[in-house]
């Protein structure tokens, strides 16, 4: 078990600067998820930790050793690949034993470890099969088993669930979480799926264009996004954004655009004051909108026209037109809204977020 430190980590290909000044401290026993859209540099970062990509600049430390110049084999890591990377010519047992065999472990020790891992993953009956005789989920377990038997200091996961169907993915997600609770091995996990990131990570690192956007615990990213990108990336359906101008009236600040006038809550007024007369981005999550009742203050209400109704059972998603934008509201399943209905929606004042239009940073 070990911590992993990345200092000023950079990766440049001929024309692409894939990873830019990444600083990250993965603590001992921690499960850290790197998440971001494709091309954000998350996989490249992981592969630099593994030693599969050369480091252009910066430093990676695993435990207390700088590993920049160590070959992958000596970094004491085990990696699980998206396509499982199982050897088609070997049985499940041989696949799981592969790393230990290459490292010349004694046979009884290999057998013991493979048995142990197979039990943990519930794949004892599959040991004599070849990978092509397994289902996707079973292959995934074998790939994880191959990593477990090595007892590495750090697990590296590169989108391990992306090739599974949706139902299996949810199931394996839970199993991976349990596995981590049990083994307590430091893990770095790469995914493009924010739900996977939120459910698995002790901490989540959001990346975009090679830069780290924000590092934080899942709920912290959700409630306090550092910038517009994180706000839009974390949460599903995504946060709604509207272009508004900041105006002062009656001793308060207001976010305005034709068809919309919302009062800025006192908690943010201090910071928003600097933007008086300028345009900013107003953000509100679908779940922070509801159909207005008499008790909602008129200062936080907007008129909306229903454009799409998505009844999901436990909730209803309404695509509504507010001012000039179409936004999504997640409302109670008892709401009986029809196409083209006019609704009055109320916003939760404390959940309003404001972003600088130029820097996109949270205000």
């Amino acid at each position: 078990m070990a911590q992993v430190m990345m200092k000023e980590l950079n990766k440049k290909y001929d024309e692409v600067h894939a990873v830019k000044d990444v600083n990250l401290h993965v603590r001992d026993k921690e499960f850290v998820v790197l998440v971001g859209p494709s091309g954000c540099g998350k996989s490249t970062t992981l592969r630099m930790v593994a030693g599969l990509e050369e480091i252009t600049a910066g430093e990676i430390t695993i435990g207390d050793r700088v590993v920049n110049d160590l070959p992958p084999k000596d970094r004491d890591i085990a990696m699980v690949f998206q396509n499982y990377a199982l050897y088609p010519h070997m049985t499940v047992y041989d696949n799981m034993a592969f790393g230990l065999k290459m490292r010349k472990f004694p046979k009884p020790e290999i057998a013991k470890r493979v048995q142990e891992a197979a039990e943990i993953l519930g794949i004892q009956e599959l040991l004599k099969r070849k990978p092509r005789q397994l289902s996707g989920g079973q292959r995934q377990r074998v790939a994880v088993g191959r990593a477990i038997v090595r007892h590495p200091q750090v697990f590296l996961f590169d989108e391990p669930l992306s090739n599974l169907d949706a139902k299996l993915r949810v199931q394996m997600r839970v199993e991976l979480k349990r596995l981590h609770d049990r083994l307590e091995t430091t893990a770095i996990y790469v995914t493009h799926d924010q739900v996977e990131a939120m459910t698995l990570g002790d901490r989540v690192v959001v990346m975009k264009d090679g830069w780290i956007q924000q590092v934080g615990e899942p709920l912290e990213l959700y409630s306090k996004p550092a910038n517009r990108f994180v706000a839009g990336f974390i949460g599903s359906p995504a946060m709604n954004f509207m272009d508004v101008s900041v105006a002062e009236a009656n001793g308060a600040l207001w976010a305005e655009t034709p068809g919309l006038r919302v009062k800025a809550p006192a908690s943010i007024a201090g910071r928003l004051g600097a933007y008086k007369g300028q345009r900013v981005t107003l953000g509100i999550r679908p779940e922070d909108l509801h159909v207005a009742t008499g008790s909602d203050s008129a200062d936080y209400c907007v008129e909306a026209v229903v454009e799409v109704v998505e009844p999901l059972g436990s909730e209803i998603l309404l695509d509504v037109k507010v001012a000039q934008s179409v936004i999504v509201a997640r409302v109670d399943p008892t709401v009986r809204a029809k196409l083209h209905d006019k609704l009055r929606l109320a916003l939760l004042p404390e959940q309003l977020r404001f972003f600088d239009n130029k820097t996109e940073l949270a205000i």
Partner: protein
Amino acid sequence: MAAARSAGRTRDIRLAYLLLAPTLLLLLTTLAYPIGWEIWTSFTDLSPLKDGSAEFVGLTNYGRLLGDPEFWRAALVTVVYAIITSVAKLALGLGFALLLARPFRGRALVFLAIFIPWAYPAGVSVIGWYWTLSPPTTTAYAPAMGHLKHLVDGTLGTGAWAFTSIILFNIWRGSSFIGVLLLAGINAIPPELFECALLESKSRWRRFRLVTVPLLRPFLALAVFLSLTGAFADLANVWMLTAGRIVFPVIGTHAYFLAVKAGQYGPASALALTLVPFLLTILLVLFRLFDPPRREAT
């Protein structure tokens, strides 16, 4: 229901045969008929030099072959030729493929250099090789090549240098092809399988032996198959490089000589047919490696 389905099935099968008919006709006329004719001829004394019709002579042609030292010599030369060229082509081709599988500066140029021998027309290449190995006397290195020829012919017998040049030409051209074939094979293997091995071992040799070779097995088998069968049935390379002045005949050239130069169709057919069991054996042995059995005991 069942009757209707079976009627539909019959119709499908009929249609399938109808669609296959042109191919079958082509195969029958271009493959089955000549082979059948050759087998028949091998049992006769058919010859353009003989008056009257061909007579059935049974196994006489085969019997004569077995007692003919020329046949045994040609067979030995063919086996030596096939083995030397196949081993060398496989080693070189694999080396080329491994070299080209990794990106490096100037890779495109190296790829071209390696692929040109195969892409270039054989006839033109042969002339280049001929002039390189037997340069006109005014060429600066002509004396050196002359010495080499004398040295090789002096040690191994007249014609050895010519035979060596055939082997070299075959290797030069064939390793180019096998290199590209194996490169395609390596590229078809997901890179994670190699990366996974990289995480577990520093030794290139161990990774090569335990991962690369087994993963490439179907491609290696195909390469060996093409190389061996090509060499066993070779006629063109040997004929072109030596302009028919053959001192080291292989089965192919010997059969050609018997049939076209000596007009002995019967013995020539018998001789050519002796290759069939060898080619079939090679095919059957390697077939198991192309596509390993799907169903393992569980």
